[in-house]
């Protein structure tokens, strides 16, 4: 049972660090509350949708900002979507960057937008890695016979 206790502590500590570092916010907790025995994979499922959606949007953003004449309305629309979905899963840092990104769109500032895109890509990559690690720790805990602390 010692192994389970250790795994549980590891998970709790890791999870806490994500919140402390501002990578995740309260909304992620809200999602976890929606998970139960009848829907044990809800959080993983939503987050997977977020990953797919974000990767598509980041791709589109890259293409849109490469154009000779940038369509800022289109760029803004993509950023708005990214802001929405990151907010819905609690990816706080990504969400916050999107706010600044939209300001550059309004100013029709290509350079500003490109800089933001780089930052968003970085933060997205970070939250993706962190969440994947979190889910791995959860799986390990469950495989060892433990349960995820609520």
């Amino acid at each position: 049972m010692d192994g389970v206790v250790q795994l549980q502590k590891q998970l709790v500590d890791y999870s806490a660090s994500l919140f402390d570092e501002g990578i995740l916010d309260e909304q992620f907790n809200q999602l976890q509350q929606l998970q139960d025995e009848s829907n044990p994979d809800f959080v993983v499922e939503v987050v997977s949708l977020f990953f797919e959606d974000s990767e598509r949007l980041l791709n589109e953003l890259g293409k849109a900002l490469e154009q000779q004449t940038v369509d800022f309305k289109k760029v803004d629309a993509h950023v708005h979507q990214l802001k929405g979905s990151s907010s819905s899963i609690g990816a706080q840092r990504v969400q916050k960057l999107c706010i600044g990104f939209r300001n550059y769109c309004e100013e029709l500032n290509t350079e500003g937008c490109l800089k933001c895109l780089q930052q968003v890509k970085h933060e997205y990559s970070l939250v993706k890695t962190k969440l994947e690690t979190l889910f791995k720790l959860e799986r390990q805990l469950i495989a060892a016979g433990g349960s995820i602390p609520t």
Partner: protein
Amino acid sequence: METARQVCRRNLQESVEVCDGSPELHVLAVDDSLVDRKVIERLLKISSCKVTAVESGTRALQYLGLDGEKGKGSVGFDGLKVNLIMTDYSMPGMTGYELLKKIKQESSLLKEIPVVIMSSENILTRIDRCLEEGAEEYLVKPVKLADVKRLKDFIIRGEGKDSGETRIRKRRRQDDHTSLPQSVPLSSSPALAFDPLSTLMPSSSPSACSTKRAKLRI
């Protein structure tokens, strides 16, 4: 000839399933974001609601039979009556606001369905516009379980509940009682009047009143 209120009550009784004495609402959720659709669907299901989630205003109108085909009132094409519509504001094509207008301007039972707008943006003029057009509430995203629970109570009991949350803007009727009088003639519904400076908007349109005030008689 039945009054609109009687018709509304009968429809509610007919359409709402009773499980252990607690009625099941059918909610039509409209959002272009796949992530948000999944979340709202789960929020509603965990609150014991039936959910139909669609990705656009156009799809929503098709579902409600408002796309030119013979109006089926508030019954979706799968035969299930809709008790509440929750729609995102910013959607490509038809916005949630445009969807709201189309629903409220229909001269059928459709305009009786409460419509709630969801938006990530807390813009006062936008909120005012939606409430003026007949939206029941304007929820700032991300929508929480507490929001859904409050909405559900509101719809089932036909009364407003004050959650005390300042970030959610809602209209409050002049007579915000916890228990309603047995009979409320439509003619006594307060006229639409509001003070733009106030964060509370008293009163509501007569059509919304009848939905709110029709208590479920099971």
